[in-house]
């Protein structure tokens, strides 16, 4: 029995089909990346996996249990969700934000206990922001905010973490920082991470770090291919998926071993024009 299993999942907005008959599974200490063009339904799929939307057909099994039978706090204890964009309204302190990760473990009429505060501080330490706990989170940079959101998800102490484009809008370094944090969490905490991303290189990054990684290429309401990045992210598949020419390169780098990356060369439209 896997930690999380999605079977025959379908979703539509009325007549508009978003995805149909999709299935995958994930276990402790694994990463599952979903790659695909804008509007292919990645976010909707993640919302369904995270219990925010109900699948029109199919099931999400959490430890073999059908998710539709679980109440919101039961789901939240098993799946933590890191949203794509977060609108900040009130300038809560960083610790207050991370404490919200404890919601599923706090009764309706209660407030967080000292243990909850401890776990929130622990989560902040894991993402390297322990010193930020009393800062208003509205004053943080994009990268720091994203790490706070990850810390909040960590405070949920759920075995599965769902991340929707966690590196969107981040600069070169902060992107790497988030990826490093994810690698560390999967390696050390045994987290299972499901992540939507626009960058095939993210999947390679995890594989390069020797994590058990699977990647799904999503297009036209279905998975075009699923498998290890090395097998799936090839030039042919990427041409079908994005209509671009690419080259997958392998380097030997001291201290890092074999590193694989894909570079984009040109769009097919441009090729025709030439």
């Amino acid at each position, binding site marked *: 029995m896997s930690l999380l299993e999605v079977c025959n999942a379908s979703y539509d907005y009325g007549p508009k089909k978003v995805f149909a008959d999709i299935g995958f599974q994930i276990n402790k200490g694994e990463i599952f990346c979903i790659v695909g063009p804008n509007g292919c339904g990645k976010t909707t799929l993640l919302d369904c996996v995270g219990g*925010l939307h109900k699948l029109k057909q199919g099931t999400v099994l959490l430890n073999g249990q059908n998710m539709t039978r679980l109440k919101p706090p039961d789901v939240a204890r098993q799946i*933590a*969700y890191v*949203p794509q964009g977060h609108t900040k*309204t*009130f300038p809560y302190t960083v610790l207050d934000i991370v404490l919200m990760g404890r*919601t599923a473990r706090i009764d309706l009429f209660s407030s967080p206990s000292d243990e909850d505060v401890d776990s929130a501080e622990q989560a902040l330490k894991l993402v390297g922001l322990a010193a930020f706990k009393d800062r*208003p989170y509205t004053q943080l940079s994009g990268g720091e905010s994203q790490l706070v959101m990850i810390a*909040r998800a960590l405070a949920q102490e759920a075995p599965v973490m769902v991340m929707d484009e966690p590196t969107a809008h981040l600069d070169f370094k902060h992107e790497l920082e988030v990826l490093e944090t994810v690698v560390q969490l999967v390696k050390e905490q045994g987290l299972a991470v499901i992540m939507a991303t626009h960058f095939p290189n993210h999947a390679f990054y995890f594989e390069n770090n020797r994590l058990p990684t699977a990647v799904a290429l999503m297009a036209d309401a279905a998975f075009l291919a699923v498998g290890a990045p090395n097998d799936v992210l090839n030039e042919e598949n990427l041409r079908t998926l994005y209509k671009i020419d690419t080259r997958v390169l392998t380097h030997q780098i001291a201290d890092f071993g074999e590193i694989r990356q894909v570079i984009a060369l040109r769009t097919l439209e441009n090729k025709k024009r030439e």
Partner: protein
Amino acid sequence: MSKVKIKTGMLLIILPLIVIFIALFMGRYPLPIPLVAEILWAKLTLGASGVPLKYETIVWDIRLPRAILGALVGASLAVSGAAFQGLFRNPLVSSGILGVSAGSGFGAALAIVLFNSTAHIYLFAFCFGGIAVLLSIMVGSIYNTTPTIMLVLGGVIISSVFSALLSFLKYVADPYNQLPTIVFWLMGSMASVRYQDITIAGLPMVIGLAGLFAVRWRLNVLSMGDKEALSLGINTKLNKGLIIFCATLATAGAVCVSGIIGWVGLIIPHIARMLVGNDNRLVIPTSMSLGACFLTFVDTLGRTITGSEIPLGILTALVGGPFFVYLLKKTKGKGW
């Protein structure tokens, strides 16, 4: 519980009590503090005070119920405003956003035109306040993809409908008798308050206040937006419903005895945030305490400075506005 927490809690409870006590000896008929203390002591110990009955009546039967109700009304309006601001993730929202005030105003005017008895005014104001909120929720749930914005929009629409109906009632009301009553009611006053008003209107207010106090931490989570709150494990429909119910109960209870008092439900929560930050665990109790102090104080002022009472709705803004600006300057908008 740390010591700071206990101290803050004590302060928040004691502050309104002090203001209520001040309200007992201030007025057009000032009484010396020892006399007031003697009356209170005698009443609380059920003994005879030896103070002339006239003074006893002023303190115990006229000023005390009014001060207590003022504190309840202020706390209710302020805390509903704070709750709605968090729930709707919008700092410009006040306790009347879902139409309670407009609905109550219409209800009161209707009762004045039809019956002109206090009991009917209470009942109608309270019920129409609730009806207005229900209608707003119904309008808000027609189009369900962005529930929060639609709910606010529903509130705005229903409020404007009830305002229009109120204008119509003013137009048809007897201009010598009923119209002034409606206008004065709308300006807000607690001049006619007695103990029985506390028992009638106090119940919904106390239930609402207690409910909002109990779920105060959840407000933080709900202010993250529906989607995130759900992903954090909150049954958003149930929790939002509970908060709207409590806030409506408190506000309708307040409005039906005091009339429309603006300002408190919008600005007191902001003052609370300037003082204690944004965590609703603190904002809610602080809003309650400050709201209670502020309204009791303003009401006392309103019946002290001139012979005929100045309506509350006028004074809250006149007194509160400058105070808000002063605080803004002093704290440099801390928390914002």
